[in-house]
């Protein structure tokens, strides 16, 4: 049974918690109801936010907690008002490293480097300093190498509720993602170096 009088309380709690998020257990403690009831309450509220077209905010699940967030269709208006800090988005190297850590955690630097085929200390350092990955123990064996795992902030940063929401790894690559510029370059490279390369072979 949904209890409408809780709506106001939950909204105020969500508002106060902000991007720290509100968990089911916090909600159940504050409202003095069971976890199941708390979950029903919050999910009913979640639906009502998305149904109401005169609401500009809604409830999202992030990193295992509930948070209020602006609805996506409001983004153009908000962009006129607030500025995003110059968030340097993650580099390709950092993203690849993070992907490997996310799917294979806990994992050592060496194993990551085996997969990527290149040194990976700098991307790892970046990711640790951004609080996206953490030291998650030590590997067995002689070196006792650091094992890396993802953090709470990782989930939040990518808008995930938990690790099970990571997109499945696919073996087959459909569709070419090669950017045209690279290909253009490649063709001209072949033309200009083609002859020379043949000479080298002889």
């Amino acid at each position, binding site marked *: 049974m949904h209890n409408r009088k809780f709506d106001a309380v939950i909204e105020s709690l969500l*508002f*106060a*918690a*902000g*991007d720290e998020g509100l968990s089911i257990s916090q909600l159940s403690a504050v409202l003095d109801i069971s976890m199941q009831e708390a979950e029903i309450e919050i999910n009913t509220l979640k639906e009502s936010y998305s149904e109401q077209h005169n609401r500009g905010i809604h409830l*999202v699940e992030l990193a295992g907690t509930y*948070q*209020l*967030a*602006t609805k*996506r269709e409001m*983004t153009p208006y*908000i962009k006129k*008002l*607030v*500025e*995003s*800090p110059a*968030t340097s*988005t*993650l580099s*390709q*190297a950092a*993203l*690849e490293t*993070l*992907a490997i850590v*996310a*799917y294979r955690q806990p994992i050592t630097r060496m194993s990551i480097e085996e*997969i*990527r*085929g*290149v*040194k990976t200390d700098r991307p790892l350092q970046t990711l*640790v300093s*951004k*609080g*996206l990955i*953490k*030291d998650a123990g030590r590997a067995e064996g002689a070196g006792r190498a650091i094992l890396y795992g993802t953090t*709470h*902030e990782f989930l*939040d*940063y*990518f*808008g*995930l509720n938990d690790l099970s929401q990571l997109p499945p*790894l696919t*073996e087959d*690559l459909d569709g070419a*993602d*090669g950017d045209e510029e*690279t290909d253009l370059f*490649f063709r001209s*490279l*072949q033309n200009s*170096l083609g002859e020379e*390369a043949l000479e*080298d*072979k002889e």
Partner: protein
Amino acid sequence: MEYSVKVDAFEGPLDLLLHLIQGLEIDIYDIPMADISEQYMLYIRAMKVLELNLASEYLVMASTLLAIKSRMLLPKHEESWEQDEEAFEEEDPRDELVERLIEYRKYKQAAAELKEKEQERGSFYTKAPVDLSQFEAQKQDSLEDMQIDLHDLLGAFNKLLRRKKLKKPMSARISRQEVSIEKRMEEILSDLRSRRAPSLFHEMFPVTEKPHMVVSFLAVLELMKRNEITIKQEGNFSDILVEAFEGVNLVAQP
């Protein structure tokens, strides 16, 4: 010309190989080693021409490619009694490389999806928590009870850096430029003169916008200082009346 720029056109030799395979539209499970090594060497050579900082992994891969190529050129040991078993191909020298490429490609793809999620997440706004420290102080917890570690600290800091900031009020800045104090002084003065009777103080503030009100107030003060206007109040809490001095025609320029 010197090219000391550190360039990461590719995320390493595997990335480069994947790019070549894709560009040549060849089957990753049946890589023509001669072609691929040739193309690979072209790139390596090009990077050297540019004096790019070529990571040693690229060179290791180059020799791996050449080794595989030569192993494939070796004539197969065709001992007669084994001929029937040709169906059982002996281990393909490319196998290990193909496996690595496929494994790497999985994560490269996953990285692309993470990038999408990163952008998607960046397109909606969450808010900073309300400062609840006033209640926190009453909570008597020992340090040991706090379930935080350094990564929480870094995570919190990252969140702070990501948080959006309000743009400096655009229209406020514009309106401040629109009404200068001088201009407002002229307006007030000509207003008062045209009335010929004292005006109420609050009439000096026809626009209820903060910058405009501030400008109006400063204009009134400046006019008083220059003895262009006079301000009277009959008694406590009675209306403040503003009046222009007679006989002054111009707002003197400072």
